[in-house]
C-alpha cells in the first residue's frame, strides 16, 4: 500500500471497512461494526505499547481484507461485487465472461452426449472458414462505414481487394495464434470477433438486398434500352403472363391506321379464336408512362351496346392519373367532370399502303373520308 500510515486514523480505517462491506444491509453492517472504532483504538493502544507504535494499516492490513475476514467469520457470504471502482474494461468484461461461462456450461453438457464429438471435430475443422468470413464481414462494415462503395459480395477495384486481403491476413494470423498475443490487442481482437458474429447476418442480408436491387436495375436497363422506339411506355415484367408483347416488352395500347395511313378509332381486336385481345389487365388502376409525357396515364374501358365493359377497343382512352379517384367500391374511376381522351399517338399519319388516291389500284381501299 502506498498510502502513508499517517493518513489513516482509526475513524478513517473503520469507515473504509464499512465501505468495503457494501452489499450487506445497513443493519448488518452496523451489527458487525458497532464497536469497531473502540476495538481498533484499544488494539492499537495495546500494540503500540508492545510494538513501538505501528500505524493502523500496518497493524490491521488493508481495510478490504479486514472487512472480508470480518464477513466470513460472521458466516456471511463473501461479496460477489468488488466494492472498489470497476474500470470500464471490467464493465465490458463481466458480461462477456458471463456469456463465456454459459457457453462453457452448454459445451460441457453437449460433450456428455455421444453424438457431439464428431460434430465438434467437424466444426473445429471448419474454423478457417470462419476466419475468412469474419474478415469479409469486417471488410463490409469498414467500407460501408467509410462510404467507399455500395455493398457487393466481392470488392471492385484493386484498393478494395487489397483491403479485403489485409483483413483476411489479420484474421487468419490471429486465428492461427500467430499474431495479437499481447493483452490489449487480444482484447481488441476478441471484441472484433464478437462484433463479427453479431454483424454477420445483417451484413449478408444487406449485401443480398443490394445485389437484388442491382439485378433489377440491370434488367430494367436491358429492357428499357430495347424500348427506345416503342410507341408507349411499358411496365417491366420478367414474363408477361397475358397481353400484347412486342420485342419482349408488354404493350399498353394499340394504334390502328387504315390503308391510306389515317388513324382509326374504336377498333375491336380479337384473336383467332374470338377472344378479346387486351393489353392492360389493371382495369384502370395502373399507371402508364408514355414517351415525352411527365404525368402517368390510366385507361378506361369502353361500354358497348349491351353495357359490357370492353377493354379490347383501341386505342384505349384514358386521362392523366391525377384526374382519377378511387370510388367507394374500390374501383379507379374518372372524376365527374373529366372526359377520357385518346393518348398521344406515335404519329398522326402512317405511311399509306397503296399509291396515292385516284390511282387505278385503289379499288377496294376505303377512302379517307370513310373514317370517322
Amino acid at each position, binding site marked *: 500500500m502506498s498510502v502513508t500510515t499517517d493518513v489513516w486514523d482509526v475513524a478513517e480505517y473503520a469507515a473504509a471497512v464499512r465501505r468495503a462491506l457494501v452489499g450487506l444491509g445497513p443493519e448488518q453492517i452496523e451489527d*458487525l461494526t458497532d*464497536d469497531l472504532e*473502540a476495538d481498533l483504538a484499544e488494539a492499537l493502544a495495546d500494540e503500540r505499547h508492545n510494538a513501538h507504535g505501528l500505524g493502523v494499516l500496518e497493524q490491521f492490513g488493508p481495510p478490504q481484507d*479486514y*472487512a472480508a475476514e*470480518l*464477513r466470513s467469520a460472521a458466516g456471511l457470504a463473501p461479496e460477489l461485487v468488488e466494492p472498489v471502482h470497476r474500470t470500464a474494461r471490467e464493465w465490458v468484461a463481466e458480461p462477456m465472461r458471463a456469456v463465456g461461462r454459459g457457453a462453457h456450461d452448454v459445451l460441457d453438457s453437449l460433450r456428455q452426449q455421444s453424438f457431439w464429438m464428431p460434430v465438434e471435430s467437424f466444426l473445429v475443422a471448419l474454423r478457417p472458414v470462419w476466419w475468412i468470413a469474419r474478415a469479409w464481414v469486417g471488410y463490409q462494415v469498414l467500407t460501408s462505414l467509410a462510404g467507399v462503395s455500395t455493398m457487393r459480395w466481392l470488392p471492385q477495384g484493386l484498393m478494395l481487394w487489397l483491403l479485403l486481403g489485409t483483413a483476411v491476413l489479420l484474421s487468419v494470423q490471429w486465428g492461427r495464434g500467430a499474431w495479437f498475443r499481447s493483452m490489449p490487442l487480444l482484447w481488441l481482437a476478441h471484441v472484433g470477433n464478437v462484433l463479427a458474429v453479431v454483424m454477420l447476418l445483417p451484413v449478408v442480408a444487406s449485401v443480398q438486398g443490394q445485389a437484388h436491387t442491382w439485378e433489377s436495375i440491370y434488367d430494367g436497363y436491358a429492357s428499357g434500352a430495347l424500348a427506345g422506339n416503342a410507341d408507349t411506355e411499358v411496365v417491366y415484367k420478367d414474363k408477361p403472363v397475358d397481353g400484347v408483347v412486342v420485342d419482349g416488352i408488354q404493350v399498353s395500347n394499340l394504334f390502328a391506321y387504315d390503308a391510306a395511313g389515317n388513324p382509326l378509332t374504336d377498333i375491336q381486336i380479337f384473336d383467332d379464336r374470338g377472344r378479346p385481345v387486351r393489353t392492360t389487365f389493371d382495369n384502370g388502376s395502373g399507371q402508364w408512362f408514355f414517351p415525352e409525357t411527365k404525368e402517368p396515364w390510366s385507361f378506361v374501358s369502353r361500354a358497348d351496346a349491351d353495357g359490357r365493359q370492353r377493354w379490347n377497343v383501341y386505342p384505349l382512352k384514358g386521362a392523366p392519373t391525377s384526374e382519377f379517384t378511387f370510388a367507394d367500391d374500390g374501383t379507379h374511376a374518372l372524376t365527374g367532370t373529366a372526359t377520357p381522351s385518346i393518348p398521344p399517338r406515335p404519329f398522326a399519319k402512317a405511311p399509306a399502303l397503296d399509291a396515292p388516291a385516284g390511282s387505278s389500284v385503289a379499288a377496294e381501299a376505303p377512302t379517307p373520308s370513310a373514317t370517322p
Partner: protein
Amino acid sequence: MDTTQLLKGVLDLAVLAVVSDEDGYGYDVVRRLRAAGIEEVGDASVYGTLRRLYSSGALTSYVVPSDEGPHRKYYGINAQGRAMLEAQRKDWQEFAGTMGRLLETEVVR
C-alpha cells in the same frame, strides 16, 4: 504447519471457552485468546465469530456504558452456548487424543 488454518476449525470452540470463563467485549476476547497462546488469530475473525455465535443463539449480548471511553458491547454465554461448548469440547478432546496417538505411533515407528 500453518496454524491459522487449524485455528479456523476450532475458533468457535476457543471463543466459547474464553467467554464461558467471563463475559467480554470484542477486543477483550482477542486479548484473552492471545494471552492463552493463540497468537495468530485475527481481530476481525474474532469479532465476526462473536457476532455469528450471538446470531445463532449461543451467546447473549449487552451494552455496558462507560464513563471514560465508548460504550462496549459485552458477550456472555447462555445455556445453548454451554451445551455447544460441552459437545465441541468432547469432540475436540477425542480428535486431539486420536491425533496424539497417531502421531505417537508415527514417532515410535
